[in-house]
């Protein structure tokens, strides 16, 4: 078992494996011998007994590609284009990238010891009251869900058809984070509910909420307990953390 792990770690992928076969056999990349490569490649793939299916899939796709090139080369009528051309181009490109990675790696080990100072002194003082309070979030989220349920009921009553799943825009957590920040850059402070405007279903709500948690965690957004929090219709206020160093730069480049 240990041997297998070793082998799995050894190659970054099928191109890496082919490149190493090419090097080991002292072939010229421009004039690779497909039959030889194919045999050695398959020997590795068979021995490797992949655990990770995605990783295995990549190797198997390339095996099929090699087989295809090999069979094409056996045809008596040679086409104008060398069947190896695409693979050769890929190998050259990968080789360049691999070498560049190696050079960068040397630079990294030399320079990674340059430490930057964390601008702790400039971070806003977080006092007890504004520290993230779970009850604020759970209560606010519950009201958003309640409203969403009402909305679904209303749509059903009015017979508004749901958007079919395939036509829906998928909302990623990342995308939600960006739209939250965009909303906040314009307004600085927004109500919790406003972040969920335009959310179509539970999945959207969860995605937006998850993005908000992430933003709170990294401190780009802060949360505030409103004075009338105990009233039923009160709304949690979120503020953009303007002291956070990434705020202006990143949002500007995203917008």
């Amino acid at each position, binding site marked *: 078992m240990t041997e297998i792990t070793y082998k799995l770690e050894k190659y970054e992928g099928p191109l*890496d494996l082919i490149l190493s076969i090419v090097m080991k056999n002292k072939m010229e990349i421009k004039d690779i011998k497909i039959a030889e490569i194919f045999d050695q490649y398959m020997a590795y793939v068979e021995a490797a007994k992949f655990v990770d299916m995605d990783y295995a899939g*990549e190797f198997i796709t390339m095996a099929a590609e090699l087989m295809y090139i090999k069979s094409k080369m056996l045809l008596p009528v040679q086409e104008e284009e060398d069947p190896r051309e695409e693979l050769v181009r890929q190998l050259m490109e990968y080789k*360049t990238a691999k070498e560049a990675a190696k050079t960068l790696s040397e630079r990294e080990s030399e*320079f990674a010891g*340059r430490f*930057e*100072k964390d601008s702790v002194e400039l971070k806003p003082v977080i006092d007890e009251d504004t520290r993230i309070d779970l009850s604020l979030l759970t209560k606010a989220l519950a009201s958003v869900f309640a409203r969403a349920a009402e909305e679904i009921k209303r749509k059903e009553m009015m017979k508004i058809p749901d958007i079919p799943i395939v036509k829906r825009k998928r909302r990623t957590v990342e995308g939600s984070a960006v739209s939250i920040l965009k909303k906040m850059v314009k307004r600085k402070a927004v109500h919790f509910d406003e972040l969920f405007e335009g959310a179509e279903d539970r999945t959207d709500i969860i995605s937006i909420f998850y993005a908000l948690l992430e933003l709170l965690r990294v401190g780009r957004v802060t949360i505030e307990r409103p004075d009338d929090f105990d009233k039923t219709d009160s709304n949690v206020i979120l503020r953009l953390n303007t002291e956070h160093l990434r705020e202006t730069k990143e949002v500007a*480049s995203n917008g």
Partner: protein
Amino acid sequence: MDEEIVLSDFEKKRIIEAVLFAAGYPVTFEKLAEVMHTDAADVERVVREYAEEYNRTELARGIQLLILGKACQLVTNEVFSDYVREVLGVKSGGNLSRSSLETIAIIAYNQPVTRMYVEQVRGVDSTYAIGILLDRGLIKEVGRLDVPGRPHLYGTTEAFLRVFGLSSLDDLPPLADRTEEM
């Protein structure tokens, strides 16, 4: 700071040092120009001059002034990294894996690029490696490619320049044999 005050280079240098120390992160020439009532080109000139004085080897300072593209930053001198690591309790490991290095190399030399492009060159899924690089702040999203799906485009950051000892992307070591324009 309402009135127009013309600062001498000597004063500008001290202001730059103070700002950079307090900030910690890279500050753009533009931002510095704004607060010193001058233009970015002037700041760049002063910073370059100051960096030369600041980093003079005979002074062998523990801190150095780095120029990172259109920004500058004060960081510790890598020569003393072992001491810094020990005090801060930073593990000496944490170096990038081979897959992350390959990925950042492809991004650095071809930016801006999509994840698809990286995967095409590497021949393997690179979602994870890109995630790691984003987390470590070495790359960032710089926009979206105008094709169906509007995929993210990635480029390197100032942290990338710092960690790899470059002062701009023009400093990237030339590639051994670049076969064709990619």
